[in-house]
């Protein structure tokens, strides 16, 4: 107990020399008012900063959705094809069972399509349709072979110019063509399934993201299978077993350093080590996965260490008390309790890897492939790189496709982050 200073009941008046503050006087009231005004201004500035930042996010999303929504819609025009007249006579028996595929293969769809277009739209009628429209016709015939037996009306994708005329503005010729089609009622707008199932191409109306999305998925599989075990094991070692010595310090410094290295440096590493030194195939998902794994590993290590650190020592002591070996303590008792935190960190790290572009550009994952990759060593591209490549295209039709691809990428990333937050809130134990 410190010495208490006893106060006299009634305070003596201030020494006669000191000026007494007149709090109610005009000058003091003015001063207080200006201080409160400054307070309000400061608070408003803080609010403005928060609002401005979130407005920027809203504006970004608004621009992307505004541009990209049209990318999920495609324009189609009709084409009437008199199949029996074009193919000679194909009987109904030829379309049954095993003979079906042979019959369809025997039809020269390309020629039939050309003739039908000329018959319906005149000599250069092919300008109305996408260059790949005949494959769409073939697909519809394969799906519904009965159409081969009669005269039928097909909805086929229009050319990129007409597509843009339907959505906003295009060349005057295309606008005129579109007006003509619309007057005849031969044009409609539908959902663009091809955008979700197709691959890269040169015609913006016909490109899709499945190729690059699959490349991203394959790359992420490689990254996850390398970075997750290595990251968790390293975290276990550093947090539970590592002796305090120089080697441990070196490992810690390396991990913290790797976490701060700009991503493009990992691209240079991948180029020099994986492509040059180990002569791995260029543009392959496995090299991209390896490079991203090196980048993601430190994130997983740091998150896992925090999760392991959060498990209270009493758990370890209790396990040790009933005779568990040090390895059993960690793998049977500590790690299962740390798993929610580890999963959260891993998902966040993977989300970052999924959105990463620069290191993959360095190792050449910008392959122009019109078919999705089928394996770890096939030339592939990933969704962010696809966005970058499309953003470079001169053709205005790519603007909506780029934005649409961005929407898909953002949906993936936001879902992953939401799952991470959910896992953290649902399973994290507060000790």
């Amino acid at each position, binding site marked *: 107990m410190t010495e208490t200073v006893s106060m006299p009941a009634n305070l003596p008046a201030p020494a006669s020399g000191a000026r007494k503050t007149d709090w109610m006087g005009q000058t003091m009231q003015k001063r207080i008012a200006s201080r409160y005004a400054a307070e309000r201004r400061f608070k408003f500035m803080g609010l403005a900063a928060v609002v401005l930042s979130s407005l920027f996010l809203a504006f970004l999303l608004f621009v992307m959705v505004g541009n990209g929504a049209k990318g999920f819609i495609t324009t189609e025009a009709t084409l009437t094809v008199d199949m029996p007249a074009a193919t000679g006579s194909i009987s109904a028996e030829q379309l049954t069972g095993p003979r079906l595929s042979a019959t369809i293969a025997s039809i020269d769809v390309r020629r039939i399509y050309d003739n039908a277009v000329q018959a319906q739209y005149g000599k250069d009628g092919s300008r109305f349709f996408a260059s790949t429209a005949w494959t769409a016709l073939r697909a519809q015939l394969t799906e519904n072979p009965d159409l081969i037996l009669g005269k039928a009306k097909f909805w086929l994708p229009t050319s990129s110019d007409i597509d843009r005329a339907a959505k906003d503005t295009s060349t005057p010729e295309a606008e005129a063509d579109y007006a003509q089609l619309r007057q005849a009622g031969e044009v409609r707008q539908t959902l663009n399934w091809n955008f979700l199932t197709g691959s890269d191409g040169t015609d913006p109306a016909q490109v899709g993201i499945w190729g690059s999305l699959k490349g991203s998925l394959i790359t992420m599989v490689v990254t996850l299978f390398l970075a997750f075990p290595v990251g968790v094991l390293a975290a276990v070692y550093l947090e539970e077993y590592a002796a305090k010595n120089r080697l441990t310090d070196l490992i810690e410094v390396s991990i913290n350093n790797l976490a701060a290295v700009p991503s493009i440096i990992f691209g240079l590493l991948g180029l020099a080590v994986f492509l040059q030194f180990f002569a791995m195939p260029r543009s392959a998902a496995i090299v991209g996965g390896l490079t991203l794994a090196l980048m993601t590993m430190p994130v997983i290590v740091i998150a896992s260490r925090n999760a392991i650190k959060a498990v209270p020592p009493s758990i370890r002591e209790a396990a040790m008390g009933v005779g568990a070996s040090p390895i059993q303590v960690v793998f049977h008792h500590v790690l299962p309790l740390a798993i929610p935190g580890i999963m959260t960190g891993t998902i966040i790290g993977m989300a970052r890897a999924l959105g990463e572009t620069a290191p993959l550009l360095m190792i050449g994952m910008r392959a122009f492939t019109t078919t999705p990759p089928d394996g770890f060593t096939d030339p592939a591209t990933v969704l*962010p790189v696809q966005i970058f490549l499309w953003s470079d295209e001169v053709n205005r039709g790519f603007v909506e496709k780029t934005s649409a691809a961005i929407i898909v990428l953002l949906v993936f990333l936001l879902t992953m982050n939401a799952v991470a937050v959910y896992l953290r809130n649902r399973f994290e134990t507060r000790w």
Partner: protein
Amino acid sequence: MTSTAILFLIAGLGLITWVFARARAGRFIQSGAASVHSLPSYHGWYAAMWAVVPAILFLLVWSSVAPALGSFAVLESPLAADLPADPFARAAILSEARELSRNADLKVFNDAAVQLAPLYADADRRYMLIGALAAFLLCFAGGAYAFTRIRPDFRARTQVERTVMLALLLASLIAILATLGIVASLIFETIRFFQLVSPFEFLFGLNWNPSDKVVDGQATGFGAVPLFWGTVFIGAIIAMIVAIPLGLMSAVYLTQYASANVRKWMKPILEILAGVPTVVYGYFAALTVAPALRNFAVMIGISDASSESALAAGLVMGVMIIPFVSSMADDSIAAVPGSMRDGSLAMGATKSETIKQVLIPAALPGVVGGVLLAVSRAIGETMIVVMAAGLAANLTANPFASVTTVTTQIVQLLTGDTDFNSPMTLAAFALGLTLFIVTLLLNIVALQIVKRYREAYD
């Protein structure tokens, strides 16, 4: 047979070994052996380890040796007799032939490669088969050896745990390996670059106009000062002018003024800004911000405004950095002891006066450390500047002009099919090394400041 199939087969064999070894060890317990040291599953793991690990290790070694063996086999063949004697030209043809044997629709530059491709395919297939056979033999031998060692008193758990410890250590060593890999690859290529361009010219030269031309063993046009300036201008000046006030004020508002409900919603929204991929920011900057700024500049009478202005890239980069600055400032303000704040409020200071004159000065070292980390983040950022900043290496302080940055030029130098030994490719590594060193120094200094500041209040 592909390597994936081989791996799956070995994994399957490992599983079978695990099941059998476990069953065998289980019988000891059933038969009532006196002292069984380990649980049956540890015997299973022990045997599976012996079956799988040596085979996988062998395959790893083999996959790095087999390509060289394949090349030897091809060079032995009579078709390879008329290859050029120059080792560089020869290596180029060989590597092309190998690519061709893997991917038949490749474009070919050397016709000799076409003849050699089938030889390569042949040799690669042969060595793959030999490797797979040897791996399976190893797998069986290892499994059988472990199987014979299973006895009631065999300390399988100790053995397994020793291996697990080794695996843990190896996993943590990968971080060192990766760091060494980065440093070695950057330094190695940079030294080769400095044989063509003097380090002095690279670091202090004002003329950036890279080309593949090498005259008298010297390449010209590699003065990187305009790039350094562009990087600093966009990443450390313009971006920070946006990010520091917005980030700091957001942190102050969210920690000091906002109600718990507002904080609960606004913090994640700001975090989303950090989660948006940089390629999206880049596209946004190039598509929306840059044209708008250009129009604005023309409106206020700057006629030579570039559509790839430093301002567009810097602004968008600043927005990307906001959550980063905000969370660092948040942490350092939270670390200021509550007694300082309470003391100031008790003296009659208003909230804003407390923040401005007590909290922020006290938190300043932490904030400065956070800003340094943010700068290191910004100068290493690639996609925004690649898409929104230009390629012209100007030394200008006009924010509406086009400048180029280190990362932009690295991407520019390395995309396109240039030879790996050309000065342009090597220059990219020299730029990478510079970037690596600068970000590393910034991080070390920033962490040191933050650490010392934390100690001051502990």
